[in-house]
């Protein structure tokens, strides 16, 4: 069923109606179709507009549109690679943070990648064996090195620039 998403009671469309067909509606001058199309088309062909999609193109029914949007949310195709260095190893690695869902996930990957135990904000540490551990730190937007794990995961993702695994 169709509904204009400008209706606030619409419970169906979560994407914004990108005025695909109503550009220049009140303009009395000749409408330049190609401009309209450029405005509208850039939605579907280039990422800059992110996830916003006109709700009337391509012409598919709302149930399919919803099913695809849900699937899109589930398996994000976006990536965010950061450099990771470990103390003593001059050659660094790269890691896609968006392929991980939480700190636990990230730590598991790093421990595997670097073959060591890693301490972070929520790790339990055996006090007598500090030497065996490495600490995971990250460089934030201000250039400071912080221990990983104090802030919520999403906040961390927006702040982190690179990672370093340092000796205790």
């Amino acid at each position, binding site marked *: *069923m*169709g509904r204009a998403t400008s209706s606030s009671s619409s419970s169906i469309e979560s994407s914004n*109606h990108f005025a695909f*067909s*109503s550009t220049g*509606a*009140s303009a009395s001058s000749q*409408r330049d179709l190609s401009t309209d199309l450029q405005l509208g088309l850039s939605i*579907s062909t280039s990422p800059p507009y992110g996830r916003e999609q006109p709700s009337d193109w391509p012409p598919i029914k709302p149930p*399919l549109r919803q099913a695809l949007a849900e699937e899109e949310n589930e398996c994000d195709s976006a990536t965010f690679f950061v450099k990771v260095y470990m103390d003593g190893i001059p050659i660094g690695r790269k890691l896609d943070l968006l392929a991980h869902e939480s700190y636990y996930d990230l730590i598991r990957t790093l421990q595997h990648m670097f073959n060591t135990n890693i301490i972070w904000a929520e790790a339990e540490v055996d006090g007598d064996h500090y030497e065996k551990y490495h600490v995971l730190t990250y460089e934030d937007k201000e250039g400071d090195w912080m221990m990983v794990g104090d802030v919520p995961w999403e906040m961390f993702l927006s702040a982190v620039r690179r990672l370093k695994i340092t000796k205790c």
Partner: protein
Amino acid sequence: MFWGNRKTLKMNYFPDEVLEHVFDFISSHKDRNSVSLVCKSWYKIERYSRQRVFIGNCYSISPERLIARFPGLKSLTLKGMPHFADFNLVPHDWGGFVYPWIKALAKSRIGLEELRLKRMVVSDESLELLSKSFLNFKSLVLVSCEGFTTDGLAAIAANCRFLRELDLQENEVDDHRGHWLSSFPESCTSLVSLNFACLKGEINLGAIERLVARSPNLKSLRLNRAVPFDTLQKLLMQAPQLVDLGTGNFVHDPSSEAYNKLKSAIQRCKSIRSLSGFLEVAPHCMSAIYPICANLTFLNLSYAPGLHGNDLTKLIQHCRKLQRLWILDCIGDKGLGVVASTCKELQELRVFPSDLIGAGNAAVTEEGLVHISAGCPKLNSLLYFCQQMTNAALITVAKNCPNFIRFRLCILDPQKPDPVTNQALDEGFGAIVQSCKGLKRLSLSGLLTDQVFLYIGMYAEQLEMLSIAFAGDSDKGMLYVLNGCKKLRKLEIRDCPFGNEALLEDVGKYETMRSLWMSSCEVTLGGCKTLAEKMPSLSVEIINEIEQMEFSLDDMQKVEKMYLYRTLVGHRKDAPEFVWIL
């Protein structure tokens, strides 16, 4: 001497009952309509014997007139909103309410048994009235409707004692998660078809199990997402006679007990010919259905975006008898090649887009379509969303498949030219209409000039429905179509440079059509007013965007959305504020 005066030569030298019996063999609506026009006597006999009526536009006639003409009515099909409502182009509350129809039918002596609605607003109140008013009501089919909740479904379940079919396709239902399924009484054992795949909420699993167990005639069952894998297995054990199955959640662990149980349950279902659903699925899950693939004639995987190219092709290689395939474009051109070499009986193919943000990963191109056309000679119906198309490909397709009845192509980037030659796709579509002499439905896309419409007007003699978006250069385009396509019934146009000149050249044409939709074109308010004045038998509606509540009365203003249709009952009285009927 023997012939005498022509006027006294009567055509019906058979008694009425004989004619009626003959008419019984005429089932097509078109044919029955023709029969009724032969003479007064045939009109009378036909109308008393007519049981099935199809009304393509609910505003073209009133329920009262319908009831008066066809007292023997048993099955009614009604359509409400225009087709483009499917794509969010028609605002909420535009119209298409079924309640007045049900109310009028309920008051009359009509013994309604079947109601099929498409794009209509159906309230719980109407469902309840429906359920209580017709003792013999057997079949309710709702397609792309809205306005009702599971409470309305509960009323149908509870009150229609002889219900055989409840088929809900792609409706927007407010799911109250009530126990509507439990409303089917224990005495209800008549179900033949039950489809609730579009419902979003939880359902009572015990209730569906018991319902299926007591429905020995159940042939078609389509579940919603909330029905888990192991319930499916239990249902299949109870209904091995199923012909059409729609699964719900199909996620499971292939090493689990549930998987083995399902495999053996499915193997008992030797009659399944049609498979759909997989509303939640992971790639490794599909092997469970391999045993029944060999006999499938219809496979719908368009709601399973979790399946990728390889999974799909592996599956399809088992489906040699497929006649209809609905799939997502993740199958890719190569996958379509597999379809082409496996599914030699294929008649209908629908390839839907899976990636709406245009990341360009999954998509099909002209290659896939050419493979299909070469491998599937029986193909007659196509819906194809693709990344790009070439004239050469379309010409090849036209040569390989001259039997198209429905041809709908949607290039995801509208106005995209042939990427090889950078030309418009006029020649390609021209080849299609020239080759496919039986073409009844056509949707165009890509870069198109007036030329394509010249071809359509010249060659598409059987064309009944045409959908145009972002095409054409001038009014000539639309005129070629209006002048050339004698059998045109529905024309829907968006974002094309067609204006008043095209609209007004042959106003009588619209009386031969069901409807015309034009949005974001060049027609002005003045043009629409002129049309409305000249043709009182048409209803010319101007639909305003909600932002435009202050509707200017300037005749030069371009109309955002216009929908016109022929009607025998004048302007409708239920139009909302934002619809202005001229």
